């Protein structure tokens, strides 16, 4: 009888821990210092893109962004500027649209192609159709940046997770350029003084379970 009781308590504990784990999906992605996996996702030009394709890059500014979030739209020009400034230093942008096109129709592949044309994106704009990469990285909002640095062994180490700067509304009033500060330190071979930053953003539109 006692044994059965103990077993019951044990089971309840397991259930409780399981429920806790299930209730906290926000913390399951990469942390700074983790190794990021490569991906193979379809670009707006129809070709598949991986980080491994860019042999000369020292790292990447992996940017989860989309067509529909006003914050993403507000940051489009600044993402282009980031790419134009840091691609020559070895850190190009790879943009990934994480939204499910059924949940967010204006994020369909065709709409992505159109937006990329309109804005003349100088970087790949990839469609994470299965949302597997988004989940693995742990992106929760758009825009959400993961700056990764290529290691001597070819792995990609997460160096920075966060936002672009301190003013999504008005680029002219930006005081702190968080991503640029991190990139400058990375390029200079210095430790990143602020490797995690946050911003308000749109939730990622997940596929209906």
């Amino acid at each position, binding site marked *: 009888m006692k044994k059965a009781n103990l077993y019951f308590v044990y089971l309840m504990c397991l259930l409780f821990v399981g429920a806790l784990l299930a209730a906290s999906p926000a913390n399951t992605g990469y942390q700074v210092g983790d190794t990021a996996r490569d991906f193979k996702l379809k670009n707006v030009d129809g070709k598949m893109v991986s980080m491994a394709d860019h042999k000369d890059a020292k790292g990447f500014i992996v940017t989860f962004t989309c067509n529909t979030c006003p914050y993403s739209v507000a940051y489009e020009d600044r993402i282009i500027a980031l790419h134009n400034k840091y691609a020559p230093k070895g850190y190009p942008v790879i943009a990934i649209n994480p939204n499910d096109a059924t949940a967010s129709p204006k994020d369909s592949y065709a709409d992505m192609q159109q937006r990329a044309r309109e804005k003349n994106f100088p970087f790949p704009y990839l469609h994470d159709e299965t949302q597997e990469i988004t989940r693995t990285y742990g992106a929760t909002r758009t825009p959400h940046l993961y700056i990764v640095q290529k290691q001597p062994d070819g792995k990609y180490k997460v160096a920075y997770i*966060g*936002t672009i700067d301190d003013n*999504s509304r008005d680029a002219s009033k930006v005081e*702190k350029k968080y991503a640029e500060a991190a990139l400058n330190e990375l390029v200079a071979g210095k430790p990143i003084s602020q490797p995690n930053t946050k911003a308000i953003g749109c939730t990622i539109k997940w596929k209906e379970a």
Partner: protein
Amino acid sequence: MMKIKLNFLLATLAFILAASPAFAQEVKVIKYKELEQIRNAPHDTLYVVNFWATWCRPCIKEMPYFEALTEQYKDQPVRVMLVSMDAAEDLESRVKPFVQKRNLKSDVLLLDEVDANSWIDKLEPKWSGAIPATMVFNNKKKQYEFVEGELSQEALQRIISKYKP
């Protein structure tokens, strides 16, 4: 000493103003300090603070569930606060018309802070910054729950029934 007292008085006043139901239908613009005062309110009241924006589709979808709480618990110490993340510049052109059109009964506030990185972690380190997000608390009873993401009406009701007075 005098200054501290005055500050305290002002803070209390600001809090009462922010929390007063007489101000429903108005949109009060607040700074992070005032949000922090709400978060730390010592009363035996269940606060349901929802972060939203006029441009956030899932926020608008779940908003009726919060409005329903305001109605359901209007005679009880439950206070629903809808804290808009819209830009302060959009107060007149977007937020107020939205509140009018939907005839919102809950308290509506607008958090006028630009650099979210400066306050999100102070408020809730688990929050990534994605909206909608909701915090439910009764500080007197030491109850607290935070949810990032859209809530169904059932999920919201389930949280509230755990803590309701």
